[in-house]
């Protein structure tokens, strides 16, 4: 019986020739990540295990990105605890303010995750690295603590879903629209405990930034991981970032899938997920008149260079609506600098937008754009649960960067073609 990429990566890290869905295996991890809100829990638990040091100071990664630069004294205390742990264990990959970025944009950018790797993180969007052809999945603080101590974790080998998409995407349609479209079709638990493998010509033509967006939101369908086989595009991306050897895995022809979904790229229009679930999607043509108070462009889903370029292309020479606020948050320092050098900031600032230092901030109602009761935001982020960005009576609409930028100009949900 053939294996999928996911099964091959898990088998390789379990020291086995093969694995099958349902197998419980212990695997070696190539990277074990936590952030400023999950690492404190990991540290508390790690200190109970009774080991002196982490399993590998190069592979334990901490990125303080959620409530940083700190929003209050309690978040500063957490960041301090995390910082002191990083110093004590001489972690190579601890990223301080000024060098950090939103974790799932930062790690691929620095070449810390490569094709064929097995990465875990105490953050649900750790599944982002599937865009590189790696197996990666989110866990909790205690799971990470155990992995920091032993270099291993346990996994149940998931069953597989295949999403095959062929054809050329329409203008402005990006990875975000693809994944929202898929979640709209299968629901927020449509891939519960399962692997989501994305195949077909449409993905082969997709930029790395868009591939990360797609895999980032696998968790919003309940998925264990999302994965796109590495190709020439991936190799080129990785070559600029790392000299570490890696393995490219591909699914066998006779690999087993619980279900195969076939979609056509031409059917995917710009998507918006209405409150309060990522699966509550509508095509832009069915969005209707929705007045928006605040637009956020950023996050581990859509704070990358491609997203900022798209937004700037639409905002150039235009103004953000007088009753709408636009907050742009480049996901990493490198993206920030590149965007600045390309003149994107001038476009944003001339349009009347605020440009922030990298942070997860408003995505989870932390800071830098929290909503009041009755307010509506449209964001390029990943969740629109009740109260996600602030008051429980606020609303979040999810979309890609093109809709976000056009919406900021119109003050109502809109696409670039309506400008």
């Amino acid at each position, binding site marked *: 019986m053939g294996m999928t990429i996911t099964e091959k990566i898990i088998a390789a890290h379990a020291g086995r020739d093969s694995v099958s869905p349902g197998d419980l295996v212990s695997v070696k991890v190539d990277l074990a990540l936590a952030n400023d809100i999950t690492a404190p829990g990991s540290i508390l638990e790690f200190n109970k295990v009774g080991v002196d040091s982490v399993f590998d100071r190069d592979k334990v990664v901490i990125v303080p990105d959620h409530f940083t630069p700190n929003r209050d004294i309690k978040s500063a205390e957490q960041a301090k605890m995390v910082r002191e742990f990083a110093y004590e264990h001489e972690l190579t990959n601890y990223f301080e303010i000024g060098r950090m970025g939103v974790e799932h944009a930062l790690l691929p950018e620095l070449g810390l995750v490569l094709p064929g790797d097995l990465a875990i993180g105490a953050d649900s969007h750790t599944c982002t690295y599937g865009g590189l052809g790696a197996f990666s999945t989110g866990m909790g603080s205690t799971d990470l603590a155990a992995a920091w101590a032993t270099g291993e974790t346990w996994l149940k080998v998931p069953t597989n879903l295949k999403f095959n998409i062929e054809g050329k995407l329409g203008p402005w349609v990006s990875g975000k629209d693809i994944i929202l479209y898929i979640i709209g079709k299968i629901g927020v638990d449509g891939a519960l405990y399962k692997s989501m493998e994305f195949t077909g010509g449409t993905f082969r033509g997709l930029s790395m930034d868009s591939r990360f967006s797609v895999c980032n939101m696998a968790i919003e369908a309940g998925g264990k991981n999302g994965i796109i086989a590495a190709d020439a595009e991936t190799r080129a991306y990785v070559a600029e970032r790392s000299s570490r050897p890696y393995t490219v895995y591909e699914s066998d022809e006779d690999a087993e899938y619980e279900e195969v979904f076939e979609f056509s790229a031409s059917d995917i229009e710009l998507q918006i997920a209405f409150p309060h679930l990522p699966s509550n999607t509508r095509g832009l043509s069915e969005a209707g008149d929705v007045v928006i108070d605040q637009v956020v462009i950023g996050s581990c889903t859509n704070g990358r260079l491609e997203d900022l370029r798209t937004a700037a292309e639409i905002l150039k020479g235009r103004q953000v609506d007088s009753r709408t606020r636009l907050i742009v948050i480049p996901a990493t320092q490198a993206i920030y600098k590149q965007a600045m050098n390309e003149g994107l900031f001038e476009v944003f600032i001339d349009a009347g937008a605020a440009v922030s230092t990298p942070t997860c901030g408003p995505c989870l109602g932390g800071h830098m754009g929290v909503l009041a009761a009755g307010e509506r935001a449209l964001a390029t982020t990943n969740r629109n649960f*009740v109260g996600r960005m602030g008051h429980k009576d606020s609303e979040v609409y999810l979309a890609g960067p093109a809709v976000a930028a056009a919406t900021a100009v119109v003050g109502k949900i809109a696409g670039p073609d309506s400008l």
Partner: protein
Amino acid sequence: MEISGKAHKFGRDIDTDIIIPAPYLTTFDPDELAAHCMEPLAPDFNERVEAGDIIVADENFGCGSSREHAPVAIKGTGISAVVAKSFARIFFRNAINTGLPILESPEAVDAINAGDQVKIDTTAGVITNVTTGKVFKVAPFPEFLAGVVEAGGLIEYTKRKVAG
């Protein structure tokens, strides 16, 4: 383990931002977290729960973020177990790792009303609706997971492992 308490019913897709909203993730203290548990849906949840009570919910309980604060907050309110039609996978791991008993039983969920008195034998995998007398059997955890639970959670299990 024997658990007994009254049922608090919830619908499907109860996400981690409902269980414990992100702004409160600046502590791992169970009492502090419990004060805000379920706040967007039921601001008085912590006051309504009596020690031993049980959450009974529909599909996909605990979807969303990886925050382990979620099972910690639930335990902090005095809730002793969650019975759901299904659990989101990270929440499932976190519940086991933090020692919050979770049981998957669509039949039991449909047959338990808010306020019903419920008894659970986690070892035998039996849920009893004491109010109606109906009894439900739950599939046991796989052996490995049962071992983690039996050791008292993942950290105890890991301690034994590193001690050889």
